[in-house]
């Protein structure tokens, strides 16, 4: 059936895109693992409709392709939760970095100010 071929091609392209993003360092390995796992599972399921049917039967799912949706949906849910955890961690880090940067800047300005003052007063005290 043509849908099997389309499913296979889409899964394969997805897998290739993920690996290429990792190769070009646009995707950190730790986050890519999710997508890699999803790509592999989708590819395996799409090349063997028999496997999909069997797993669906074991789980008591009458319409096998809906198992694909279920797996995909759970994957998305997990990934999005993971993403917001990562985002929260990033937020905390950004806040601390910004605070440190602001304080460093203020210290630097004060140091510059002091240097300027001593440079101006030195010729006077020597002469």
């Amino acid at each position: 059936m043509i849908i099997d071929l389309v499913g296979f091609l889409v899964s394969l392209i997805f897998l290739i895109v993920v690996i290429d993003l990792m190769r070009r360092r646009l995707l950190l390995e730790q986050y890519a693992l999710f997508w890699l796992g999803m790509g592999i599972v989708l590819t395996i399921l799409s090349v063997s409709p028999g496997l999909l049917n069997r797993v669906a039967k074991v789980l008591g799912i009458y319409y096998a392709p809906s198992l694909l949706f279920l797996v995909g949906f759970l994957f998305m849910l997990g990934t999005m939760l993971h993403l917001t955890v990562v985002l929260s961690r990033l937020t905390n880090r950004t806040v601390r970095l910004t605070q440190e940067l602001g304080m460093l800047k203020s210290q630097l300005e004060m140091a510059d100010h002091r240097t300027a003052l001593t440079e101006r007063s030195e010729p006077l005290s020597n002469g």
Partner: protein
Amino acid sequence: MKEALVIIPALNEERSVGNVVRSILSSCPMVDVIVISDGSTDQTAIVAREAGAKVVELPVNLGIGGAMQTGYLYAWRAGYHYAIQIDADGQHDPADLPKLLDEMGRGDADMIVGSRYVERTAYRSSASRRVGMVMLATLIRMAVGYPIKDTTSGYRIVNHKTIELFSRFYPHDYPEVEVLVLLHRHRLRIREVAVEMKERQAGRSSITMMRSAYYMFKVSLAILLEVMRGKEARREGKS
């Protein structure tokens, strides 16, 4: 260096921050003032510096919690004994500062809240706002076990123990109420003292009608989460 640091977070408050800094320094010469310019795009930092404050300019806007924590981080590293937070919009009267410092000097509290409701003062607010305040006060009473009347007041003085805690943990947004439970969780004591509150000189409250429902939900959730985190073990060795 002075013994106490007044922290003023300010976002685009060039019109009022100068007056606030000057009136603090004139009514209470025994404090240093630091203005945290939270990614301001106007002259806030320059005006504050000219008025005699130390200034930390944050390169991006962090929101009230992140800005306030910068002040506490500064106070902790510089070794101040006390830190006082005060709004840049002019609703807190610097004339109450010596009173807050005196009360802190008694050493029976780790944070003192400048409160509108302890004694009868000139402050009035809308009915819906008062309902919200009462709800928050009830929640806080259940969470900490004793009454704190003005839970949302941003006029506060803390000692060095609390400065240390705030330099590590400080809520990101709407921090005032959540902080009360945070302190209780770390076995730190809170007390209230009556202060005068004026109408704001400039700017609007960060809590508009549209946001008040979200505010109540967010703050209640934060209180619940703080309670769920449980009490910290008493840390020995540190005074």
